[in-house]
């Protein structure tokens, strides 16, 4: 697997699932919290990536 985006999504899903399960007891609440966390991680990462794209990084 070489796609950085897919690796990031996999990481976000695993971390989301972990914290959803850890912090919520009801299945529905856990899925909701986990999905929200995973989507937030992916979304924030994309925003940061686009902001960094505008920065002069030398070279």
């Amino acid at each position, binding site marked *: *697997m070489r796609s*950085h985006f897919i*690796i990031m999504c*996999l*990481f976000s899903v*695993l*971390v989301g*699932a972990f914290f959803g*399960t*850890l912090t919520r007891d009801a299945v529905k609440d856990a899925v909701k919290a986990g999905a929200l966390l995973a989507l937030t991680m992916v979304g924030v990462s994309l925003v940061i990536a686009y902001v960094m794209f505008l920065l002069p990084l030398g070279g």
Partner: protein
Amino acid sequence: MESRGRVALACVLAWALPGAGHFYLGKRTKGILFLAIVLTTFLAGLGLQGRVYLANAEQPLSYLATFANVALGPLDLVGRQITYARILYRFPSEMEPGLYQEIQDRNRERILAETHEYGTTFVLTAGLMNILLILDVFDFGIGRKS
């Protein structure tokens, strides 16, 4: 609230196998889910050419990383065997030239992989997850969390 012995055993089980502490305290579904999540994270990390850390006096932060790896219990031994082909916790000194060179070569082989940083992050995260699981089991055990 559980007895002290049961809490201690639950924490040891949680360290030995992710989710086992929850399973032991009756949270069976959570225990199985935690095992699946932590195991997937750890194995994905190794599959992405991640590595477990060795304590190195020249890099003090490596102690923290090694601690996070060791928090995975016996799974960490699997990681060490796969990464270094031996159970090793301390980075060898240059006084042991054969071992030093072998470990450097094995590290280099993984570091050159495109997904190495991701893989190492996955492996470290699996260890950190397990630390949180041990603390969660402790909280359940002493009745701080219902």
